[in-house]
């Protein structure tokens, strides 16, 4: 147990430290990378909670897939530094008040959740009940929570179709501007993915 406790503190320190640094330092690319570090620290904590499946999914989905997109956006927007906003809506008294209230509400919620955790019927480190094995997760998803699962799938599908439609409309407009044949989708797509975005994003550097 002692070893696991040490590991817990190591991973917790990684998660908290990197998360703090995400907010504190000003280079967006570093922020993205530190957030990945934070996700990996969290994945380590999941392993300690006997949930290796959740840990690996955390790395694949968050640290792998989503953060790659974040990194791309930040890199191609080419913003080397965040500007410190000294005026406008972010500095107004109303923003500060609402922010402070949200922070207090969050702290209260955290305290409530932590207080409640000691009264749970069982703890996550209880090895005899392992609700996190892959077959068990599958069974729960497709039996107990089938409706929520399918509803989420449809939501994601709708978002995906929306994204494709938006991107597709821009593509055809771009093609019309350059008086290219609109039917030649594969060539246009290849050009966008490779040359167009890359040179457009990097030209300012």
């Amino acid at each position: 147990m002692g070893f696991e406790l040490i590991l817990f503190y190591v991973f917790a320190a990684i998660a908290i430290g990197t998360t703090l640094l995400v907010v504190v330092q000003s280079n967006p690319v570093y922020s993205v990378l530190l957030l990945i570090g934070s996700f990996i620290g969290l994945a380590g904590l999941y392993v300690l909670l006997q949930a290796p499946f959740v840990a690996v999914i955390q790395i694949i989905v968050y640290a792998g897939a989503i953060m790659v997109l974040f990194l791309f956006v930040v890199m191609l927007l080419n913003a080397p530094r965040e500007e410190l906003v000294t005026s406008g809506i972010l500095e107004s008294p109303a923003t500060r008040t609402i922010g402070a209230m949200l922070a207090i509400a969050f702290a209260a919620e955290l305290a409530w959740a932590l207080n409640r955790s000691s009264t749970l019927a069982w703890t996550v480190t209880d090895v005899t009940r392992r609700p996190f094995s892959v077959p068990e997760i599958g069974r729960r998803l497709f039996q107990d929570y089938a409706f929520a699962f399918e509803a989420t799938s449809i939501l994601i599908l709708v978002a995906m179709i929306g994204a494709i439609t938006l991107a597709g409309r821009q593509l055809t407009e771009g093609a019309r501007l350059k008086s290219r044949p609109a039917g030649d989708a594969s060539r246009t797509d290849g050009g966008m993915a490779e040359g167009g975005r890359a040179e457009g994003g990097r030209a300012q550097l």
Partner: protein
Amino acid sequence: MAPASRRAGERALIPSVAIAQLVIVGFVFVVLLTAAAGMVYMERKVAARIQQRMGPTLVGPYGLLQPLADIIKLAMKEDTRPKAADPILFALAPIISAAAAFTAFAVVPFGAETDFFGLLDQPVPLQIADVNVAILWVFAVASMGVYGIVLAGWSSNSKYSLLGALRSSAQMISYELSYGMALAAVLVLAGSMSIREIVDAQAGAWLGFIPRWFVFLQPIGFFIFMTAGVAETNRAPFDFPEAEQELVAGYHTEYSSMSFAMFFLAEYINMVAVSAIASNLYLGGWHGPLLPLWLGWIWFLLKVGFLLFFYVWMRWTLPRYRYDQLMAFGWKFLLPLSVINLLATAAGVLYFGI
């Protein structure tokens, strides 16, 4: 490599499983480094033979010490960095690449359980960690490897590097899907995500002489896995990230000396890892006819060696695709094929109990 595996265990001489595990960790590290050097030699030799040349012959017998000379040459070079590069990320990128390559091997088993001829109290598996989400782990680490390349391209602040990095990440993200679908078909067949259990599901033979390897049940899956594996490791004919005629050297254009060597190392270790995983998942790992189980690592090495040779062979035989062809192939052919393969496999397991 193989006899050294047993010697490494014997040298420990302490009947403690924990120490044996540590020895295996160190051993895998050293073997991977050696394998990368060996692969450089093999690549040059095979390339030379394919082009009717001799390849390296001067350093050592048959030029065998050539990789050592290469390493010394690389280490002696000046480590340059472009003035406008981001210093921290520029240094970090090759480290991420190499670390991700090594990490993938943590879940790859390379032999049956052994107690090293009674030296240990209980048998240890020839593997660093037998986790029950091993296949997903391989997948997760592959997605981490993208960062090394993207960061290298971006932090170099050079357009060739950035173009190479963008191509590479687009390629890796596209082919990761087919890669994952092929892996999913195997885990449906084996009913487990632990690579060791998948290998053990392939023990024995049909009709007494056909080994029960998944490659016979999953020929399409094997094809998809190897194709996506080549694309994931950025090797020819999918080596767009460094297409030298177009991009100088792609994402590692600005790198020199040991930081370049780390990218090189990562590429070869990734090749070894993909070959090792393919031989475990499709070619029965250490199971094979003729040899007893405790000599199974010989089968494993033979299979990995064959796949690595295949990799090199392919590189020097096939010309590079065009970039849009690569993307169209990945999305319009390989991905639908892998989905059909997964559905057919699942249906086969569900209704016919394969």
